[in-house]
């Protein structure tokens, strides 16, 4: 077997991987451009609008930062689950639960006269715990009885949604609004602003801090190693003495905690109340981002930023090119499809390269005859 020069494969791993994504995004841009043309829009104007509205002004940047925060936390929640081999579809539900817990604590502490330095952390902690608890349910079910977490998290999304509707239109409802919106949380419970005039709250700092923590957890702790081992090959991990139920429970709970924190930040930093529609499907977009980012910490962070820019920019498309704002979602979908296609293609090429090492059938022989 010929061996390559020591560095070459490492380089190919680092750069070859991202080249694939650059190519995919180029293809996606081309497809999106033809979509814009088909809608009788001006391609260059559309692309420029996206960039300028999201990055071209302080308020645009503020909007983008505010958008990155829940998307970054949400997609890290999904990515953490994926690393352990779990699919957390329930980020939206966990965001709602975090928001509910944060709002509840905000109301409970309303007349205590506690300073913001206590109130805000209390809200964030409550939201994190709320999300963790909501992630712990599928975690425990999967760990103890092997219940598929996909179904549980999807179903819990409905539970969280209707619980939010009940609270925001029932006991906590703000009668003035006439909608499913709660009364505001006290001023002491709101996150300090990062860019007060432009409207960016400081949640982005927290999100970045948490992202770094997740990276550190995965790459520099025994616990993170165990999560990755279980995600890579549960059978081997088990044979290595790792408790699969424990890792399952902890990973899904942690994943929920990240989403719950996102919900708390949305309440404390952005809406200052519990509202139905607090998450416009962040959980679903987070899954796409986690895929786009190739499950790597850096990749997911970059993808979250790009998607945030696209989302904020797409809102302005209607004014400039007459495209509906939902065009932004079309572009996202095109990007994801292109990345998946390119990935599948390169996976097949990798597959044929590894063939001579192992017999084509990697599985053990069929189960034995027993007369």
């Amino acid at each position, binding site marked *: 077997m010929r061996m390559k020069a020591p560095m070459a494969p490492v380089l190919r791993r680092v750069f070859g991987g991202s080249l694939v994504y650059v190519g995919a995004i180029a293809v996606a841009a081309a497809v999106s451009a033809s979509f814009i043309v088909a809608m009788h829009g001006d391609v260059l104007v559309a692309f420029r609008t996206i960039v300028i509205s999201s990055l071209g002004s302080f308020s645009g940047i503020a909007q983008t930062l505010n958008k990155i925060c829940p998307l970054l936390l949400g997609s890290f929640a999904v990515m953490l689950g994926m690393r352990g081999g779990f699919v957390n579809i329930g980020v939206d539900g966990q965001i709602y639960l975090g928001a509910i817990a944060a709002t509840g604590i905000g109301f409970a502490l309303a007349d205590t006269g506690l300073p913001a330095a206590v109130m805000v952390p209390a809200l964030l902690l409550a939201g994190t715990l709320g999300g963790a608890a909501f992630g712990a349910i599928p975690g425990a079910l999967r760990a103890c009885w092997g219940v598929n977490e996909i179904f549980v998290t999807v179903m819990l999304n409905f539970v969280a949604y209707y619980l939010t509707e009940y609270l925001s239109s029932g006991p906590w409802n703000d009668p003035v609004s006439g909608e499913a919106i709660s009364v505001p949380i006290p001023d002491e419970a709101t996150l300090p602003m990062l860019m007060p005039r432009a409207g960016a709250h400081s949640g982005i700092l927290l999100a970045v801090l948490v992202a770094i923590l997740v990276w550190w957890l995965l790459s520099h702790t025994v616990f993170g190693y165990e999560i990755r081992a279980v995600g*890579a090959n549960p059978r*081997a991990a*088990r*044979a290595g003495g790792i408790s699969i139920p424990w890792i399952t429970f902890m990973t899904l709970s942690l994943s929920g905690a990240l989403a719950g924190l996102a919900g708390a930040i949305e309440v404390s930093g952005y809406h200052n109340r519990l509202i139905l529609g607090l998450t416009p499907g962040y959980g679903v977009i987070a899954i796409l981002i986690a895929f786009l980012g190739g499950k790597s910490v850096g990749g997911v962070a970059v993808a979250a930023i790009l998607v945030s820019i696209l989302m904020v920019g797409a809102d302005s498309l209607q004014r400039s090119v007459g495209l509906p704002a939902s065009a932004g979602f079309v572009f996202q979908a095109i990007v994801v499809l292109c990345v998946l296609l390119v990935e599948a293609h390169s996976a097949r090429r990798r597959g044929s390269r590894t063939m001579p090492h192992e*017999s084509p059938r990697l599985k053990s022989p069929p189960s034995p005859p027993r007369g």
Partner: protein
Amino acid sequence: MRGVAKRFGDVTALRGVDFTVAGGEIHGLLGENGAGKTTLMNVLSGLYRADRAEIAIDGRPVVIRSPADALAHRIGMVHQHVELIASFTALENVLLGREGGRWQLHLDRHRHSVEAVARRFGLAVPLDVPVRTLAAGVQQKIEILKALYRGVEILILDEPTTMLTPQEVDVLFATIRTMTAEGLTVIFITHKIREILANCDRITVMQAGVVAATLDRAAADEAILVEMMIGQRPSGMSIGTPAGARVAGAAPLLEVRELVVEADQVARAVDRCSFALAGGELVGLAGVAGNGQRELAEALVGLLPAAEGSIAVAGSEVTRASVRERLAAGLVHIAEDRIEGGVLPGLSVTENLMLGLHRLAFRGRLYDRRAAGDLARRVVAEYAVVAPHEDMPATSLSGGNIQKLMVARAMMLAEITGGRVVVAANPTRGLDVRATEFVRSRLVDFVQHDGAVLLVSEDLDELLQLCDRILVMYRGRIVGDLPRPEFDAYRIGALMAGTRDEVQACA
């Protein structure tokens, strides 16, 4: 076949191979794992497309692009592992894809022709029983029947004897002779020299993607073939003698009493097994695949729960202990299947090596990359793992090197925990001669340092060569316990096959 070349990415599997088979002969294709035997035959049977190949049948050039093309030229291949649908009957499997009728099954319409083919070639198989209930040898006959029913005249058999008992092997070769007497041509792929010498008319030896030689049976003997296969004489690697450094009367390192393991559909995969391993003892566990060896091994290391009975390591009970506790107690495992049960794909060589060690080697809760890297470099050097860099993904290594890594991991665990018992399940399966010798020498070395090894293997030759003692399993029970002086391949084969009088004699 002339000038056949095939590359997989950076790896050249075949570099211009010429290969000729005469009609009606049994042609042995011999070579180490990875020499290109199977690749060459996969090209002939249309499974792979060669980068370059000229193929002529009866002097006429043909192009083979798919298994269907190959079949049209009456070429068929039976693969190493049976590829039948387990819940279908033999008849349904043979007729798969040729059931006839547009909407309705008309199996019975074809029954006569299937039976005729079976009679003609001496392939007596029960046609109406689900194949999963049949022994491996019978399943293989069904595979052959399936090929012959499709009118195959050049039949390729890829390592057909790996899963069979010696008795079943004899039957297989009798069948092959009947087939060649009926005018078929059989190409027989193997790495077992003895089988080739006993049965083939002509022999082609492959080595590292080229044909080393094609010779008549009369011109071949074992020494010549070994030399051609390996390219050079293996020096100082042969492990002909077992360790034999047993300490008489020493307390057993591993003691299993009345162990019962329940698994899946089978009520008792392991049925009241009792045995003990002393330090310095290399004990083999023989049996046809699926008679409970795998479950026994997994129960020992804690992957399957014991329903009854007890397991003790060096005198302390571990029957209910977790895998981690057993590792800490020094009960170490080399997984049955390195891909399914051993390697962590996507993780680096280092990270793979740390699995199991990670709780013992790191002092705190942090994954110490530097310590892990140091350990990995030491192990990679000591075990001669061919890895460009220890941060490479482990799955980018070749099968043999992955297995070396798995063995290294087990041995490091044993070293760190003071472990004395290794349960090794088929540790040399699919490895080339050199890697096989290496793994075996490590096991023997471990035993010579007073460890105990339970070697689960489907390769009887391996057990006969290495072990001090062989336990034979049949349908979940240990039906034989033979010390080295009583080793006899046919007797063990009979026990493996559950031949009644032998079982009773030993039970």
